[in-house]
């Protein structure tokens, strides 16, 4: 028995170490964001700052209008995109899940091919810019993330395995149209898979910087991730933002740019860290649904 106890202790130590390794980088960035400016210049980034100072967060709350706006762009795109994506994906999945739908084979193939082959970056870019003229609009941040073959197939598998076909049959014998079947029977019974896919889509939109990198030039349309990207890659960018703010810089020798930068990374992580523990069980469930066939 004693041997077992020791094994347990060792196992837990191993897991605690790995968990710590996962969190420690966030801790470092958090501590930099609350560091005092002088201590930071002298001692560099450390896990326990020599001086605490919340100036970066005060700055964020009061003055940093472009940062707040980028936050707003991210929130708007994520909310609109997620709702639209769930509606479109589930409607397609519902059609493909119906055994009596004669085109389901062909249309499933149509979806599957998009998962196997892509035209590449340049043609994709040209479709959105030269054909649809959507560069530099909020729409281009939303449209590419609306649908993905993988999500369609996960939903279809769920509809086929978790909703008995007899339920659909009897509803339709009672005179329910396809639309009513979809809204009043399928969707209410599919909350677990909607939560799973919803989590995928939310994270996808919230973390997206690539679409902005390719299509967005106007800085009022920067989302939070792209704003972060610009401040990391280009020191002058944050300087320019800070210069425009009304903060009373006369009391400081220099602006708190290092802290500010790290504070922004923290506010980008917080929403995900808050939402995800609640949706975690759906996420794990979604991973095990998996297969594309059916």
């Amino acid at each position, binding site marked *: 028995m004693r041997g077992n106890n020791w094994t347990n202790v060792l196992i837990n130590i191993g897991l605690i170490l790995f968990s710590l390794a996962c969190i420690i980088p966030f801790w470092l960035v958090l501590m930099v964001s609350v560091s005092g400016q002088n201590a930071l210049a002298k001692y560099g980034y450390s896990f326990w700052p020599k001086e605490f100072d919340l100036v970066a967060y005060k700055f964020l709350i009061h003055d940093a209008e472009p940062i707040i706006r980028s936050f707003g762009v991210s929130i708007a795109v994520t909310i609109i995109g997620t709702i639209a994506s769930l509606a479109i994906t589930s*409607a397609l999945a519902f059609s493909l899940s119906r055994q009596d739908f004669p085109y389901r084979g062909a249309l499933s193939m149509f979806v599957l091919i998009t998962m196997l082959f*892509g035209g590449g970056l340049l043609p994709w870019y040209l*479709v959105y810019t030269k054909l649809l003229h959507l560069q530099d609009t909020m729409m281009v941040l939303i*449209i590419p993330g609306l649908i993905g073959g993988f999500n369609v197939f996960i939903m279809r598998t769920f509809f086929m395995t978790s909703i008995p076909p007899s339920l659909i049959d009897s509803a339709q014998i009672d005179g329910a149209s396809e639309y009513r079947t979809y809204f009043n029977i399928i969707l209410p019974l599919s909350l677990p898979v909607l939560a799973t896919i919803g989590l995928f889509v939310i994270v996808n939109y919230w973390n997206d910087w690539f679409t902005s990198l390719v299509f967005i030039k106007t800085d009022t349309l920067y989302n939070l991730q792209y704003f972060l990207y610009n401040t990391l890659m280009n020191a002058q960018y944050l300087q320019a933002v800070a210069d425009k703010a009304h903060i009373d810089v006369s009391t400081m020798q220099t602006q708190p740019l290092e802290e500010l930068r790290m504070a922004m990374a923290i506010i980008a992580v917080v929403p995900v860290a808050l939402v*995800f523990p609640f949706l975690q069980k759906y996420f794990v469930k979604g991973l*095990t649904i998996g297969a594309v066939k059916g």
Partner: protein
Amino acid sequence: MEAVRQSAARPVAASRKGNPLRKLWKFRALIILALPGLALLLINNYLPMFGVFLAFKDFNYAKGIIGSDWNGFDNFHFLFATSDMWHVIVHTIVYNLAFLLINTVLSVLLALLLNEVRHRFLSKFYQSTMLLPHFISMVVVAYLVYGFLNPELGFINKSILEPAGKEGISWYMSPQYWPYILTVVNIWKSVGFGSVIYLATIVGIDREYYEAAMLDGASKWKQMTKITLPFLIPVIIILTLLAIGRIFSADFGLFYQVTMNAGMLKSTTDVIDTYVYNALLVTGDTNLASAAGLLQAVVGFVLIVSVNMIVKRVSSDNSLF
């Protein structure tokens, strides 16, 4: 009403009869529901596929896709005229193989450990912290890495190397360290996710095997190696095969954001995806970009289809399609 009743009662038989137009009309509701999704796939995925012709053209923005002149395989000749493309391909494959090997070993190990934790709260706590990196954007990951590697203020230079009396390293100008850095970052970001997938398989194993083993006096170690691991092997094989199917495409975010796209690091960190991106949007060399892009898409397609055939042989339940 009558039509609805019939279709519900004998769906398959009814759909076989009748002319195609009537069939279309009969299923118009399902078609309308499917339409928005199909239209989006058409725009986002199919229209760009026609652009593969660009790889055989001398592309000119003013003339457009159709108007640009054909130039046969010239783009591919240029692509392989220097050794760049070969380096980039080798980098992509070697990084992916290293990630695959290390991630699989560590994920399985962590899943085995997690499975031994009986305390529910602890188990959930470990899983949440390990999954967190998976949900963080690569931009934020680049910040986290920068926190350690910032040459002037970063933790490693300021708090480890300087106190030890060593000189700080200009990390973003020293390509020799980056294969290790990127591997560590990749492990950090994806091992937790991998272990949760393997854990889901372990949890599904019938408890009776373990009970029988315990009656026979099998130790924990014996149970792990003789029961749990054999059950995991098929999943390991399938996930490995699928990863090999994607071996020709790299994680663009990892190689672009975490390296901060630093030119000095290219000799060890340039992969196909960053090469295509830089050719397209930085140096503006669209011909090279589309040739490299097509090469990547075709090889990727062939790999994933052949891997799927193999998986089907191994265990048809787990094949992708």
